[in-house]
């Protein structure tokens, strides 16, 4: 039997001021699966994603990435789970596009030839090659989002978690990003997408988790939510013309 890529086991998280960030969250994600994480602002989606990447560690319970507990080896989690932040600008570390994509592979202490190979591959894949020498702060929101994804892809993680990837993008930007995510899914990458744009990801994700006050209150397939368009303030279902 295949081992889940990501497991949350009864995970709770308290912030320093004792505010509850996560409340006994349990679910698992199989390799290659794409799930959407929905819920109102402040419901705990970003906190949950940070636990997957090992940036935050549970106060109780455990998160396991390919069987390895993040409390025991957070670096293993970061190597296998790439995280795309909600604010792409905050994720960009270097001055130029090429350097920023190379940042991750260089941290892995790979030979320079391998760093170059990965960076060029990812820049081509995301269509950022013409912008390779451009300063990162001069990029548009859509380009910054693509760069954030490129920086994560260059580390070749098996799982990618994306925090509100469609926010702050215009319609062409959203559809371009969606196409990129569909390609990633087709390549077998496990995706966890926290989003308010449920109608956008209904063709991408086969399963939806709904969060409220730090807890997962619903977990089901797309069909399970039919006729529940107003659930937790989410927008009504609509048809998106997928290519």
């Amino acid at each position, binding site marked *: 039997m295949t081992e889940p890529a990501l497991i949350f086991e009864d995970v709770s998280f308290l912030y320093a001021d004792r505010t509850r960030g996560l409340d006994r969250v349990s679910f698992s994600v199989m390799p290659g699966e794409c799930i959407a994480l929905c819920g109102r602002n402040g419901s705990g989606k970003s906190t949950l994603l940070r636990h997957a990447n090992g940036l935050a560690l549970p106060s109780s319970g455990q998160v396991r990435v390919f069987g390895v507990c993040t409390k025991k080896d957070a670096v293993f989690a970061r190597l296998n789970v790439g995280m795309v932040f909600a604010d792409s600008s*905050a994720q960009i570390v270097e001055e130029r596009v090429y350097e920023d994509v190379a940042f991750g592979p260089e*941290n892995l202490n*790979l030979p320079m030839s391998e760093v170059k190979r990965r960076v060029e591959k990812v820049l081509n894949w995301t269509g950022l090659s013409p912008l390779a020498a451009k300063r990162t702060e001069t990029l548009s929101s859509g380009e910054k989002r693509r760069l954030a994804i490129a920086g994560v892809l260059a580390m070749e993680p098996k799982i990618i978690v994306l925090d509100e990837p469609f926010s702050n993008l215009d319609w062409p930007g959203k559809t371009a990003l969606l196409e990129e995510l569909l390609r990633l899914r087709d390549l077998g990458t496990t995706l966890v997408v926290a989003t308010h744009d449920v109608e956008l990801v209904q063709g991408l994700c086969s399963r939806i988790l709904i969060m409220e006050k730090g807890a997962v209150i619903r977990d089901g397939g797309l069909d399970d939510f039919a006729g529940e368009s107003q659930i937790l303030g989410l927008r009504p279902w609509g048809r998106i013309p997928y290519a």
Partner: protein
Amino acid sequence: MREPATFSAQSGSSPLHDWDSRCKLAALVMTGGAAFGAGPAALAGLSLIPAAAAAVSGLALLRIAKDLKVFFIFLFFLVATHALFTPGEELMQLGWIGVSRPGLAHGLVLAWRLFLVTACGVLFAATTPNSRIRATVEWFLRPLPGVPHARIASMMGLLLSLLPGILASSNAVSCAQQARGVEQVKNPVRRLRLFATALLRTVFSRSQNLALAMTARCYSDTRTPQEFKASAQDIAALAGVAAFVATLRFYA
């Protein structure tokens, strides 16, 4: 959006951009080091180095000068303080206070030295990407035993990453406060306090986000080492600077 001019590398393919970063840093250290303790004649000679470098750099010098406005104000106050408060022969009388000739001369030399060092530093930073500066510092520190070269280089890289951000944040904070009528606050101290508090908060938040983003991408001190290639021209240019600086130190 325009490229920030100061404290960060600008695109270009000038000889200064292409000069090996290790040679560039060595030339900067030599020129800057020679400036300390140098008299007016030596300073005039040393000033030719950044002047020549600026001429071939193709950088937008006027824009850089505008970004350094606060630095020029600081230099002005430095000269004024020396001129007004150093005892000695009076050059002229400004109301109740006299301008001292030796004070003015000393202040001007001091300001010149500071300007020279800053000009070299800005030219270096404006023509060398941060990642390259970080790698160069690490390359120079690596042979020193017991020195945490990777950590020092990382700290320097972080600082260089943050400086343009701080400049951008100060503009953003200023605009945001103006949009909400900060001009109505007549007390300049209160205005400064409002500005400084907001700027500090933004800078701390930015630093925290940067640290988080670096951690998420497995940041470590042991990174892929950068490749360096110094051509014969690079070394010849450095030798030229070294010979010029040595001559000035010896004769001027």
